């Protein structure tokens, strides 16, 4: 994440939410603000920062096609401004537009063009800290941290001179932004000691009385929005403090200073309770399972499409045994977590259905498409259970084999020979039946309809009366045939034909 300062005008107001009836994703508000800014403003910086911010916000949600569209618009605006400025013989304006064109080009992946444009801007304004910071940002986007560090050092050196000569709030804020850029690039180069020192200086400075006027304005206007291209001192202050604290916290976390890391993350949440990065981090650093679950739930609500969060959560699920059916479905974040839990349990058909429903709501989201691809790959690569390749007449299948069998049924990938082998086999497993019998059983009988084998759900075609008295939720020895795949309480399940039920010996 880069941070640019363009502190010359005000932000526009809120427009109607596009995600009616959804719990708001954290960046929804910023997207609405920027869409409104773009719709209402005509000046270059408002238009440019609006599209750059929209691109960054979309990118953070892994909506790459939408992000690219915004960056293309930003580039067009910057290119037009370059030509207009040259016609008007306004060379500083031309250099600024050229710097932004370079940044937009970098975001679009055109490194060669971005480099040439950055050089062109420097011909006219190599005395400008802002130009050097834009070069640093461009190089950072192009993943050239050594170049970014060099450019950022120039920006910081110039801004420090400016602060020495004129220690205004505006100059101090600019210095903080450039120090943050430098620190970010140093982190990319693994030069963390200097980065930590810089970030500490930035956070300390922002929390000091030097910014009391800005802090009062922020409190009065209840500003909380985070932008990569912030406009106005208040917006720049809020965004810079947020980003600097997050960076500093991550440095603390990476070197094992958990207490300091938590303090910084919690400070971020004190200013903005739905910051997805801080929530994800606090889930990682949680002291109890309940705390972890709570932070994960909040983090997914804040940004359901963050791949780092999703990978974190998948690792967490891998360490846990993902329980089924415990999730609430009323938020996008919760639905994504359900899908991840289904993937973890191997309920790939159900996971596909969950993701497909989300894709209908968020058709441009790359995270959902990626998860769907991952599910499809796992389904396609589901191994044929060993018993289907044998001539055995009976088997005691593992949970993995039963889940693979469900996927094979769902994808219709069983050959005629394999189906014949399956039909010829009987299976023996330890089953746990669920719930009370569907209707009062006759004396000496027990009626069951569904249950699970090693956490793999199953059900019968109809309630079956077994001779004998058996309790639900008790491990029992079930002998059965496998008829196919079905759904049980929304989850993938096997359709079984019971042959015998008896107590475990």
């Amino acid at each position, binding site marked *: 994440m880069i941070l640019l300062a363009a502190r010359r005008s005000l932000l526009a107001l809120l427009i109607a939410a596009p995600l009616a009836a959804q719990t708001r994703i954290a960046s929804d508000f910023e997207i609405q603000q920027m869409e409104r800014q773009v719709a209402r403003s005509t000046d270059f910086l408002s238009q440019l920062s609006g599209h750059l911010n929209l691109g960054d916000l979309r990118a953070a949600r892994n909506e790459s096609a939408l992000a690219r569209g915004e960056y293309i618009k930003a580039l067009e605006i910057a290119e037009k401004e370059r030509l207009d400025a040259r016609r008007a013989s306004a060379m500083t304006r*031309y250099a600024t537009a050229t710097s932004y064109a370079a940044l937009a080009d970098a975001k679009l992946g*055109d490194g060669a063009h971005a480099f040439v444009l950055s050089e062109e801007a420097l011909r006219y304004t190599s005395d400008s800290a802002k130009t050097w910071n834009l070069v640093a940002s461009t190089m950072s986007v192009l993943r050239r941290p050594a170049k970014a560090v*060099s450019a950022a050092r120039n920006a910081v050196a110039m801004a420090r001179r400016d602060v020495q000569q004129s220690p205004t709030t505006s100059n101090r804020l600019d210095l903080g932004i450039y120090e943050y850029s430098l620190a970010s690039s140093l982190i990319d180069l693994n030069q963390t000691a200097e980065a930590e020192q810089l970030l500490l200086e930035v956070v300390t400075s922002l929390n000091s009385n030097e910014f009391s006027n800005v802090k009062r304005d922020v409190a009065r206007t209840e500003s909380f929005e985070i932008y990569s291209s912030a406009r106005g001192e208040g917006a720049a202050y809020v965004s810079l403090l947020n980003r600097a604290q997050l960076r500093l916290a991550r440095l603390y976390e990476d070197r094992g200073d958990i207490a300091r890391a938590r303090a910084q993350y919690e400070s971020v949440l004190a200013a903005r309770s739905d910051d997805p990065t801080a929530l994800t981090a606090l889930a990682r650093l949680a002291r109890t399972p309940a705390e972890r679950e709570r932070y994960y739930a909040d983090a997914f609500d804040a940004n359901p499409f963050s791949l780092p969060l999703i990978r974190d959560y998948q690792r967490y699920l891998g360490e846990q045994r993902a329980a089924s059916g415990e999730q609430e479905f009323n938020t996008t974040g919760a639905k994504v977590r359900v899908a991840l839990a289904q993937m973890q349990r191997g309920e790939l058909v159900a996971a596909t259905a969950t993701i497909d429903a989300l894709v209908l709501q968020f058709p441009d989201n790359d995270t959902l498409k990626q998860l769907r691809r991952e599910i499809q790959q796992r389904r396609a690569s589901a191994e044929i259970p060993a018993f289907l390749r044998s001539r055995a007449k009976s088997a005691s299948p593992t949970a993995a084999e039963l889940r693979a069998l469900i996927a094979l049924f769902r994808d219709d990938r069983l050959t005629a020979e394999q189906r014949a082998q399956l039909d010829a086999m009987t299976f023996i497993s330890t089953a746990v039946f669920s719930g009370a019998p569907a209707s009062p059983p006759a004396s000496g009988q027990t009626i069951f309809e569904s249950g699970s084998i090693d956490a793999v759900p199953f059900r019968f075609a109809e309630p079956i009366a077994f001779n004998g008295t058996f309790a639900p939720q008790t491990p029992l020895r079930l002998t059965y045939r496998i008829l196919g795949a079905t759904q049980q309480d929304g989850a993938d399940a096997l359709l079984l034909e019971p042959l015998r039920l008896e107590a475990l010996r």
Partner: protein
Amino acid sequence: MKRWGIVCLLIVPGAFAQVVTTTPRGVALANSGSLQLFDRSGREVLWSGEGVDSPTAVIASSDRIAVIDSINNEARVADLPTGRGRTVHTGETPIDGLFVGGDFFLLARDARSLDRIGSDGAKASVAVAADPAFIRQAGDRIYVYSRAAGVLQEITISPFAVHRSAQVGPFASDLELDSRNAYLAYPRAAKIGVVSLASMTSAGNIDVGAVPVDVAFASRSTALTARTLAVADPSAKRVWMIEGAQSFTQAVTRGFLRGLLGLGLFGGRASQFPTGVDRVIVRGSAWFAFDTSSGTLYRFTKSRSVVLAKGIAPSAFSVGPDGVFIWNDAVRRLQRLE
């Protein structure tokens, strides 16, 4: 005049991965991954060899050539007659270079170093001041100007070391040297700063236009005039012609002679362009100017300008003794304009 006056090309903009340079043996073209040498007409390929991923500059001597990749920190140094050479990893952001004898001197901006790469690939390096931007040669010395630091450094070739440094003012956009002086263009201050190479001290400033960006030597000194500098000023949409530095005695003598002969100094002192030009190139008696924002290449005299091509990248054309060569990205060909 008729020979060059009317040729005009409209070329698709956006080609930034090609660099064209004229050399004593023909025209060099660097594309992504390849380096080619064409004959002097630009039609026949003399050789084609390995290049760099993102060529940003090509430097040639009479018998060697180097293509620089500023983004990926690489340079391909090759023999000009054969194209055989080696690719070397450079310091961070190689930005400019020159050949002296068999050695290639390469300025790495973000490494803040001047690297010497021998013909055998052996490397040596000297540290230079912050933001080194330009490297030039005068006699047996190399001069490096560091933009943010505002330092001009004189570097001896043997031993390879910084010999003298002078604080000359930061943020210049161009540096040119003659045997006596260094000329630095300061766009913000609207001045050309002159530094005496003998003393490495300021020899004064020349006020020029509104935003002087690029400098080229337009003529040698004569009995009547000092050396003439052409200065591109995109804000004024002009190329200014000014006299370079001269001693007090020279100035008095030349003024006296002009008085005797009844001559003014440059009756038409500037050329007007429809767009702002920010680069000026002089080849013999032919003057060229380039507008980077629109990619327009002009040929001009003191009284008029003619568009030669539009929509070309700053590095995609070269002016040499055998003509003007451009890379036309629309048809993917090297073309000779005149």
